[in-house]
């Protein structure tokens, strides 16, 4: 009752030929377009920075890497609960792809490009953050999958990393297949960052690569034979057939990262460590180089 009567009062005032009402209308009609303009403009600008996504199992060193890239030195970290973005600048040692065409002798000042880095939680319950930014991110330029090179020497650690990587690659593959029909099938390269190379028990990057490939092949096999999930069977319609849910080249027994090429996903594996002993920054030039090449 009270609200309807106040609303009525309000409307009466708004339509009355009072000078205040005219002024109010004038003000609104003038400022609204401006506000909308600024709103859209802000959105457009914010979109610009090339974004790289940090993904990987919990404890792999994503957040450590983020702080290293953003601040030049790694911070101590704990398990993440929320995503975190940061703006970083390519160091002068890594050349960006635009830079490739510049002459070696060109000394004119050229600002190193900036990029946004988005860290995601790796805990099993929180991976929806990563997958949602994977499917919605429009300025996504690349994906850095961080693995703990020491953890993959244990069966459980290897399985966890391989399952996660399998799911991520499958998402990228599906994204590529879907966007093939639309005008720009944007390829998203993936860097598998074999982190913690400083740890005594860690495997070298080459071995991490083959181990992951072997394990993904197993994951792929059981996934294809596993139960359908509830999302498919009970609602009619979009039932994914086996081929679209098969990662890489359909029907092959072995999985190689190179199979992802035909799906527009280029995978490279490079070693490094975000943190040296004693907490100082480790060796990450190879990763910076990759970022520079894909910016």
């Amino acid at each position, binding site marked *: 009752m009270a*609200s309807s009567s*106040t*609303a009525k*009062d*309000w409307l009466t*005032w708004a339509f009355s030929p009072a000078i205040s009402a005219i002024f109010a209308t004038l003000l609104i009609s003038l400022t609204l377009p401006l506000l909308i303009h600024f*709103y859209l403009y802000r959105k457009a600008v914010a979109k610009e920075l090339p974004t790289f996504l940090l993904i990987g199992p919990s*404890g792999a060193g994503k*957040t450590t890497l*983020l*702080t290293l890239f*953003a*601040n030049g030195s790694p*911070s*101590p*970290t*704990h*398990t*993440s*609960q*929320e*995503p*975190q*973005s*940061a*703006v970083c600048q390519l160091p002068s040692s890594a050349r960006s792809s635009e830079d490739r065409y510049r002459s070696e002798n060109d000394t004119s000042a050229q600002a190193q490009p900036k990029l946004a880095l988005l*860290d995601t*939680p790796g*805990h*099993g*319950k*929180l*991976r*929806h953050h990563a997958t949602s930014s994977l499917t919605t991110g429009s300025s996504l330029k690349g994906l850095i999958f961080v693995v703990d090179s020491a953890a993959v020497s244990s*069966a459980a650690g290897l*399985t*966890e990393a391989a*399952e996660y990587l399998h799911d991520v690659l499958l998402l990228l593959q599906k994204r590529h297949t879907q966007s093939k029909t639309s005008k720009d099938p944007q390829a998203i390269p993936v860097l598998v960052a074999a982190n913690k190379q400083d740890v005594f028990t860690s495997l070298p990057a080459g071995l991490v690569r083959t181990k992951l490939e072997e394990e993904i092949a*197993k*994951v792929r096999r*059981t*996934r294809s*034979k*596993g*139960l*359908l*999930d*509830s*999302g*498919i*069977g*009970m*609602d009619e319609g979009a039932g994914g057939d086996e081929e679209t849910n098969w990662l890489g080249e359909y029907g092959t027994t072995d999985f190689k990262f190179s199979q992802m090429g035909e799906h527009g996903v280029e995978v490279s594996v490079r070693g490094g460590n975000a943190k040296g002993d004693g907490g100082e920054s480790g060796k990450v030039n190879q990763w910076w180089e990759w970022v520079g090449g894909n910016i």
Partner: protein
Amino acid sequence: MLDAFEILTTSGIVLWRKHYAPIAPSIVDGLIRDVFIEEKQSPSNEQYRKERYTLKWSLAKDVGLVFVAVYQSLLHLSWVDNLLTAVKALFVKEYGSEVKTGRTTKLHTSRWDATFDALVTKLDTGNEPPPPPVFASQPKRPAIPRKEQVVMDDTTSADATPIPTPDTSRPATPHLLTAKGGPGGKTSRRARKAQNFATSAPASSGDESAAGKASKVKSTAKAKRRWDVDGGAIDDYGDDATLDYSASTSDAVNGDDHDNDIADVSASQMGSRTGKGQFVLKDLDDEVDAILASSRSQKSQSSDPDPSSTGGGGLLGTATSRLTGLFRNALGGATLTKSSLQQPLAAMRNHLLEKNVAREAADRLCASVETDLLNQKTASFTSIDKTIRESMEKALTRILTPTSSLDLLRDVTTTTTGPSARPYVISIVGVNGVGKSTNLSKIAYFLLQNHFRVLIVAGDTFRSGAVEQLRVHVRNLSELARREAVGRVELFEKGYGKDAASVAKEAVSYASNNTGKGGGEMLYDVVLIDTAGRRHNDTRLMSSLTKFGQLANPDKIFMVGEALVGSDSVAQARNFAKEFVDTKGNLRNNGVGMDGFIISKCDTVGDMVGTLVSMVHATGIPVVFLGVGQHYGDLRGLNVGWAVERLMR
């Protein structure tokens, strides 16, 4: 003695920390995993234990900060609560606006070290088991003299009084006070109050400028006023004087000319304040008392309704505010308060209840959404309802997603191959009539299709007809398997009346075929054990489950529950889970007892899949399979997105 104190963001970056003794990062990681992410602990439990440490924490949700204190469980450090409260208030005041931008990955916290040390010195009352309400009333003086001792180190060192340990400080208090000559007794404290009155103004003016720079005036002003009121009240007169004092203080804060008069003084004070720890201490003292007092009063008042929405303001006034409220709601940018959240949250709760989510789970989910959103601003073009929806979707996704996903085929393959190959043992439990045998047959069918050899064990030696029912299933399954040329299946039964646990044990050794000398080839890959259905409140039958779990030692124990409305699945699940303890008395599978739920009859409930949430919420055990029909093939894995979508529909 504190072992460590850390201040970190929810994204996992440690902004500041102090370790008094080396502790592994896994201790704090454990807190984050078990309490914040997996919510294994009831939210009313305010401490977390890991290894030999006890952890206490405090959250500043709106700026995304976590404050954690770590100490050895042997000690009773009741003052840590006060420390957390004070650190949180001061740190957020100092760095909150910087952290709020969301892009902070590093803070320059060199100033903070001194403040923190001062706080610890002030608040540390040592190891005292009974937790009296510290600073609650006047007799609680010991901390103040100690502070004065630090500030006026000259006088006290002349006194040659050793730094009082908590035990000695109390009897020594009167002595200390009189020995200090000048400032002692009630009158001089009153004089100090007058001084304090003068210094509180410069301090606040300094704060004002800092706040202006940081553009977060509102919250600081509020905190500060409380500080003057309560701190003063506690320091000097006690509760009776509060009113009159608060009036004069707000005068001082508001009076601009007053501020200007002593602006130069304040500047010099600020300098020395940040430079040396001692001045920090002096300023801090009252502020900390105020923070603690206000947090206490907030706690006691938290039940009172918030009288923030004032009734007056004239017709046009209310109409405009209503209208802007409406705009705010539509355009976003509204700050979510307890009162503005109340109604939509109640609606959300009802919605969940309608979807058959248990009351307890719905309450907890709504509470977690509320803490998630309280004091947050809605995003642009997002209404409050939509914000709540999104937050609820996140909470549901988190609760339903298992920490590690189950890949049964892989598990079976790894166990049954290699040098230490053995049969993989799965057992199915549940109350009467939920469809244990049916779902067991569905799993058997799934395994058969993947070319495994399955032995089905009739562990229900109790209910007449149970073995026959299984025999029918096995006959059907072998017929299907023969037709499709896949794996093979057989029934293992020892009739009725025998102990289920020993039947299961026999079956496992039969399947592995290693009883004879040297043993032979493994006969079966998977042993599927059916168990007797039992009422979950039948203690005698329930406790036999414990023995069963220990003797048969299954790789996986699944419980079958119904999706149907009105079944008391939650109580069932709880009672079953707590029976599966190992010989050391620990619950199986990392303390949750069982490995997963199979929710049967999902096809009959439509959207009302709330049972999934209730069961997972009550036990922390994930839902692994859904039964969706009458056929052997009607078994599905859980798709979390699907379930959340149905629940929110």
